[in-house]
């Protein structure tokens, strides 16, 4: 503002370019008005957030007034259309939680590994090809993921689920077992005197190796024999939601890793650390808050997702037996809102209608809190990088 006014106004010598007082006043008023208009338009999003809270809460309140909090949060009896309706949503809360937990279990290790790889391992030219892949994963509509989960993945799980799980366990288990054995043999070898070292090392490798192989075989066998009653279950949804949350986690944590300065890395290298040690011991701790923010954003993406869970979670409002059994169908808050509104819409104003708003309100509050926390984390990581 300052520069333009000065140049347009006073300091120019040619008299024809001087503005009269009135013109200058007019200009200033126009500037203030324009500024106000822009601010008004910009605060539209603030208004939208406010209205969302107000209107969801307005329709959620009657439910809490009428039915109280206790049944909603502690009971698993969900019979909204019975003669004496029961609105226990605990099973839905549990369903949302377990599905999100599963998704995070899939997405966080993969996402952080991919982010590290993108920022520190692969060359820049290759990165240009990987980024579009991540963007495409993020762009595929959720209903297409849901369709895949329901039509392709669920039958596959139902028919070949056990074998798939066994293969997955081998793929993950074998390399990690090899690594653990190498490290253990090394560490144990160091403690002994030179004479026994190689003997001890080979002994450990053979004993642990055969033990690990045996363990993997037993687990693989028992998993292969596993029969999955229904392909639409929490496991299916967790995998798909994990894939959907990956792009968010990768891009946010990659940003966090990038914002850790070169100096830290170079200092660590100069002390003789390998790349892995540098990243695990120096870079990741420095980028901790940014990565936490990434995880929180991933959680938000998974818990707010509707179509995939609606199509492929089985929609059974129950807590699985035992509770950690991911192969049972579950039902989530989002899927309940989407599925029950069709019927509840006819009787606007009934408890059946308001209970869905109550669920939405819980989701809203949760995502709001998550958002505040992740924002704080992101800000902190920026400050660290800047300072």
């Amino acid at each position, binding site marked *: 503002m300052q*520069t*333009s006014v000065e140049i*347009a106004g006073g300091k120019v010598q040619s008299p024809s370019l001087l503005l009269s007082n009135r013109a200058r006043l007019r200009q200033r008023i126009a500037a203030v008005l324009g500024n106000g208009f*822009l*601010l008004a*338009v*910009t605060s*539209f*999003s*603030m208004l939208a*957030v406010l209205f*969302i809270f107000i*209107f969801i809460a*307005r329709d959620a309140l009657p439910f809490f007034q009428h039915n109280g909090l206790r049944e909603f949060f502690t009971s698993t009896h969900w019979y909204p259309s019975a003669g004496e309706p029961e609105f226990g949503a605990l099973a839905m809360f549990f369903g949302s939680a377990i599905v999100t937990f599963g998704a995070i279990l899939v997405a966080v290790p*993969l996402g952080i*590994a*991919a982010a590290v*790889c993108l920022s520190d391992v692969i060359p820049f030219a290759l990165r240009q090809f990987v980024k*579009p892949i*991540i*963007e*495409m*994963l993020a*762009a*595929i*509509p*959720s*209903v*297409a*993921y849901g*369709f*895949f989960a*329901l*039509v*392709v993945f669920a039958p596959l799980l139902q028919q070949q689920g056990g074998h798939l799980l066994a293969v997955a366990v081998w793929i993950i288990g074998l390399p990690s077992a090899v*690594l653990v054995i190498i*490290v253990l043999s*090394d*560490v144990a070898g160091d403690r002994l005197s030179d004479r026994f070292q190689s003997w001890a090392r080979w002994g450990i490798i053979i004993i642990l190796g055969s033990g690990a192989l045996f363990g993997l075989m037993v687990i693989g066998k028992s998993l292969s024999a596993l029969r999955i009653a229904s392909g639409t279950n929490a496991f299916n949804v967790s995998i798909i939601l994990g*894939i959907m949350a*990956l792009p968010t986690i990768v891009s946010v944590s990659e940003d966090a890793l990038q914002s850790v300065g070169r100096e830290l890395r170079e200092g660590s290298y100069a002390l003789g650390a*390998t*790349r*892995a*040690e540098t990243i695990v011991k120096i870079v990741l701790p420095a980028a901790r808050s940014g990565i936490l923010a990434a995880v929180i954003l991933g959680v*938000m993406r998974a818990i*707010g997702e509707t*179509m995939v869970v609606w*199509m492929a979670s089985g929609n059974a409002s129950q807590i699985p037996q035992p509770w950690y059994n991911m192969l049972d169908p579950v039902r989530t808050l*989002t899927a309940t809102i*989407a599925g029950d*509104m069709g019927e509840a819409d006819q009787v*606007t104003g009934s408890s059946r209608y308001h209970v869905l*708003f109550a669920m*939405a309100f819980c989701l809203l509050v949760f*995502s*709001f809190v998550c*958002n*505040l926390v992740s*924002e704080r984390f992101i800000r902190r990581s920026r400050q660290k990088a800047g300072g």
Partner: protein
Amino acid sequence: MNLKTRKILDRAFAGSGVFSILLMTAALVVILVPMLIRGWGAIYFTATVEHRHLMLERFDRGNPERVADELNSTRETRAPLYRMITEFEKQLETSDSESRKRYTTPLRELKKAIHDLLGPAPGAIRPMLMRDQYGQMRWGRALVKLRNVLYREEWDYSDPTRGGIKALKPRAAEFTGTPVEPLCAYLENNLTDMMLPRRTLYWQFLTDNSYDSHFFGGIWPEILGTFYLAVGAMLFAIPLGLIAAIYLTEYARETRLIGMLRTCISTLAGVPSIVFGLFGLAFFINTLKVSSSKSVLAGSLTLALMILPTLIRASEEAIRAVPHTYKEAALSLGAGRWHTVMSVILPAALPGILTGIVISMGRAAGETAPIIFTAAVSVGKPLALWQVFSQPTPALSWNIYNLATEHEAVDEIRHVQYGMVLVLVSLVLILNLAAIILRARVSKRLKG
């Protein structure tokens, strides 16, 4: 630890990163490939004579004489089937009640199975439902139906610990010693002549209306509905998003109010999509009453709210990416701030802003949850432009869900579902690809 182990660990660490990236790529391929291949199958497939019959009757397409010739020739090859059945029925009328009782149900089931495969018998009354008026359009489905004619499914529930076990019983064995006995063999051997399968490119799948709850025809109403919703959402979101981005980058000082605004924008980005749907229902429809019930307008408004934060962020980034020198040059030439923004910064940021617009448009087109309560219906005619203010519309995203889960014959119309997924996914991916290319060109230009 000695150096060797540390090196191995380092390699393994890098390997796990590469592995996860490969896994992501594999996930993308595994998800996309079946959709692309089977979706393409909705457009390019082996069509039977029934398909050409339908095209001629309902859409006036194809050569009438040739189709009539084909119908005649298939009628001739089909005739022995129906002759066998009528002969057997006559025989049954004169036979004792014992054998009548024995054969009535199997014969009815057989006739039903044949009807499912070939359509109504010649001379029969034309059924009411369109799906009963024609035989199988697609050779793949015809083969499935053929198996239903040849074999009867039997489910064995004797073992309660497991689910039912399916067994296939050949139908021919039920009719040993009757005139119908050779029917199955005849059908199996001559099905090609009865159906005249031929590879067909049915590109009108994209532009045809659907008939009889998506059993026949194309997906034009859905494509049009998605288009209306996405474009409508952009119409509302672009002005708001652009102005907000300009204000936040060029005018706003970092006061507490602006900090709150930014928090609100990121909160808006984090609101679950289904909550947007409920809000659209409670606010736009029940409170503002922009339309009496669901409408494209209400859906567009809801979608616009949802993509607003994405749009603001993308435009902000694009504007920030414009080099400071541009702005300084404009200001030093005596341009006012608004003038600078409009004539220098926006044109320079335009490709970046376009990238954001294109990506958000893809997102608006693909979202389902916000339009469930505000805009989407499962069956409908394509809307005229003036109807968008009051009428709900079918949309690709909603109908993929609807046809895959709530349709009465999910398996019969798999090809339609895959076709819709193909169209939606390629629409979104093409938009994103355009954005990626745009951005690559922009970054090159801003660098050079």
